[in-house]
């Protein structure tokens, strides 16, 4: 009981201290409202009915998208997992498509559907689809060969084998994918709303931001956090109820590094699609200009002298932010994981912050830190350090006790213990967090441009949306998509390399490592 209390003391004390400081007039920073102002804003929003509408809208989009994703994703995942040919010819394409950051897709969705609910659902569905496909395919691929032997011995036909052996075996993985899909759909719905409509929680965030209403921004961010936390906890429970006893399996959902030839073969579907597109659409198409027009638009942006500075700016913010996040998240994670007292005191607070969809924090951070590249870096670092922190803390807690005792009994000094035993033990866990952070950071970096008056690719994206310039929007999507893909490929190579170097080969094949997109632990 005492330990549970400790977890609530810290946030309560922080809120009380914050209020006290503000009440006594010790600080007067207009963009940081006091808890009381925040609460007033929250109550006002709830009274006017806005809040209920916004939550219903965002949640509706996320759930509809996840439901579509669950059906379509299951079918695609079964096909990919069951038929090796399909797998060979699609995996690389899937890896490419799934790493495109949602932010880069928003302008295209707006130009295609208009700033309506359909566009939001389409975006969220797109994002929700991939974890389900990959998890289902991973679940199918992980069916034990012995189970196929059993099916053959019992003379089950093909259809019966799939129905009675493969599908039941893949259901747990599919459910885990579905859980992630709901969380991702929520994040993407908020991002989409922020960028295109005035509805939903994202719309509320963006509007309060443009209206410079700090208390309302904070109120929306807190609501997003509560929603994320409740959704996460509810889904966890639902999965546990659906799969009693079984620990949630996680399965292959990172790009498998393959030889170049195989990778190229896997990209064929995307290439074929682009060629078809080029041949069938007219140059004047408003929302689906042929790929050649994209290139023209890219060249145009380069000639205007905006493209390369924007890429440099975005890359700089991204890389610096990620590095800072790794350092901060790693150090704090170690501290939390190694001390039970700190762990008990901070974990509930951290769980809450980590459950806030990262995008919802962008307006808050921009407001607090101001615009400019440095504040962009800080914003990215603050928002994406959570997955690293949580994974490091978990890794710290799960270092085998014997390993630590061993280092003491053979007389290693404290620095030796950290350098030779503890830090190498942490790396696989940290890498998981870094991979999550790396994909989240792309989205946050672009959003920071859009809301923080940065001059990076995000700025170009939103401008293309405002100019209704579909060619430029698609061109930028291509650039951002390729960047996201390369980044994700690099991450999985790094992870594999560290896995090999750290000899985790024997214990777990890194292909079936834990989820990529997962936002909280």
């Amino acid at each position, binding site marked *: 009981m005492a330990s549970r209390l400790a977890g609530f003391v810290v946030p309560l004390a922080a809120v009380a201290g914050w209020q006290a400081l503000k009440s006594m007039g010790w600080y007067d920073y207009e963009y940081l409202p006091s808890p009381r102002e925040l609460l007033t804003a929250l109550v006002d929003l709830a009274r006017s009915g806005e809040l209920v509408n916004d939550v219903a809208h965002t949640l509706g989009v996320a759930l509809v998208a996840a439901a579509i994703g669950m059906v379509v994703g299951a079918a695609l995942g079964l096909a990919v997992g069951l038929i090796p040919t399909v797998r060979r010819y699609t995996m690389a394409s899937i890896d490419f498509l799934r790493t495109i950051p949602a932010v880069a897709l928003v302008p295209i969705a707006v130009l295609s559907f208009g700033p309506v609910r359909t566009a939001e659902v389409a975006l969220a569905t797109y994002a929700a689809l991939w974890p389900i496909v990959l998890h289902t395919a991973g679940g199918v691929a992980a069916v034990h060969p012995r189970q196929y032997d059993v099916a053959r011995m019992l003379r089950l036909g093909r259809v019966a084998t799939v129905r009675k052996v493969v599908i039941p075996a893949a259901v747990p993985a599919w459910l885990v994918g579905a859980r992630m899909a709901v969380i991702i759909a929520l994040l993407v719905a908020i991002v989409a709303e922020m960028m295109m409509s005035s509805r939903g929680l994202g719309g509320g965030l963006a509007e309060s931001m443009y209206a410079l209403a700090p208390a309302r921004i904070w109120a929306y961010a807190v609501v997003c956090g509560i929603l994320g936390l409740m959704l996460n906890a509810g889904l966890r429970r639902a999965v546990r109820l659906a799969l009693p006893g079984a620990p949630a399996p996680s399965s292959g959902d990172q790009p498998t590094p393959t030889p170049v030839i195989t990778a190229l073969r896997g990209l064929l579907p995307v290439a074929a699609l682009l060629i078809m597109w080029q041949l069938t659409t007219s140059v004047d198409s408003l929302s689906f200009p042929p790929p050649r027009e994209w290139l023209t638009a890219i060249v145009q942006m380069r000639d205007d002298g905006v493209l390369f500075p924007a890429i440099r700016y975005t890359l700089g913010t991204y890389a610096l932010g990620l590095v800072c996040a790794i350092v901060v998240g790693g150090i704090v994670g170690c501290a939390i994981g190694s001390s039970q007292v700190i762990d008990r005191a901070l974990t509930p607070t951290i769980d809450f912050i980590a459950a806030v969809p990262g995008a919802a924090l962008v307006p808050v951070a921009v407001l607090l830190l101001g615009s400019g590249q440095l504040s962009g870096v800080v914003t990215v670092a603050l928002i994406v350090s959570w997955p690293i922190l949580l994974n490091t803390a978990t890794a710290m807690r799960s270092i085998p006790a*014997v390993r630590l005792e061993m280092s*003491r*009994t053979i*007389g290693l000094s404290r620095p030796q213990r950290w350098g*030779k*035993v503890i830090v190498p033990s942490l790396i696989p866990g940290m890498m998981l967090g870094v991979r999550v952070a790396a994909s989240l950071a792309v989205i946050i970096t672009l959003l920071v441009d859009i809301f923080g008056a940065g001059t990076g690719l995000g700025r170009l994206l939103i401008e293309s949306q405002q100019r209704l310039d579909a060619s430029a929007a698609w061109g930028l999507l291509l650039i951002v998509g390729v960047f996201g893909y390369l980044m994700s490929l690099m991450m999985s190579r790094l992870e594999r390399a560290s896995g090999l*170097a750290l*000899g985790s080969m*024997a*214990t777990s094949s890194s292909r079936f490592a834990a989820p990529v997109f997962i936002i909280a632990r």
Partner: protein
Amino acid sequence: MNRILYAVDSVGVQLPGADGPRPILHAVSFEVRAGENIGIVGRSGAGKTTLLRVLGGLVDASNETVVFDGEVVRRPPSGAVMVFQDYGNALLPWRTVARNTGLGLEGRVGRDERRRRVADALSMVGLSDRGSDHPWRLSGGMAQRVQIARALALEPKVLLMDEPFGALDAITKASLQDVLLSVQQETGATVVFITHDLDEAIYLSDRVLVISGNPGTITVAVDTELPRPRDQLATRELPRYLQVRHLLGHALRDADG
């Protein structure tokens, strides 16, 4: 008589439990002389592992009554190295066999000296040709030999072994018992080990201690008085072996009752 290495004088240990501190060991006293092999047997939960951890300086005895080589044990003493049952986690999976073996020497002796000692230690346990393999390529018995080699490379006065062969099959176990005996003969090291296996305790030891009760204490101590070198078949057929076995078997059964 050899000199006394460990002097344990009525040691008591309390560990934090669900309802406050729980006494684990009570009034444990014994001595270990240089070159001796001491086997500790007892039911699971009797406090064997805790006792070994006290000797290794990993657990604080409630009163400062464990003296190793003239000094009170408060932290892991140099000269006493522990070998764990859980070889999977005690070896670092990212280091090769040779680098695992040399881990404790890094920063303490020069590179050439380290190489020499690692090579010696590996050859003593019969793993000279596996130095560049990673632990996951080894069988359980080999991995356990690497752990012993890592301890030997430190040239310890005492090896503290926590059910060292408990996770191995019977044949591997027998061969590792002989590896341990030959290593001991070669280095003159002292060995204190825990086991569930009464036969293992008698075969390896000069003296067997039985821990029982709650909190645990030493209820019986038997000198085996078996000749060296020992032999898996001949030693186990000696009348004295059966006599000791009978004695200890009784002691353990009484403890169970």
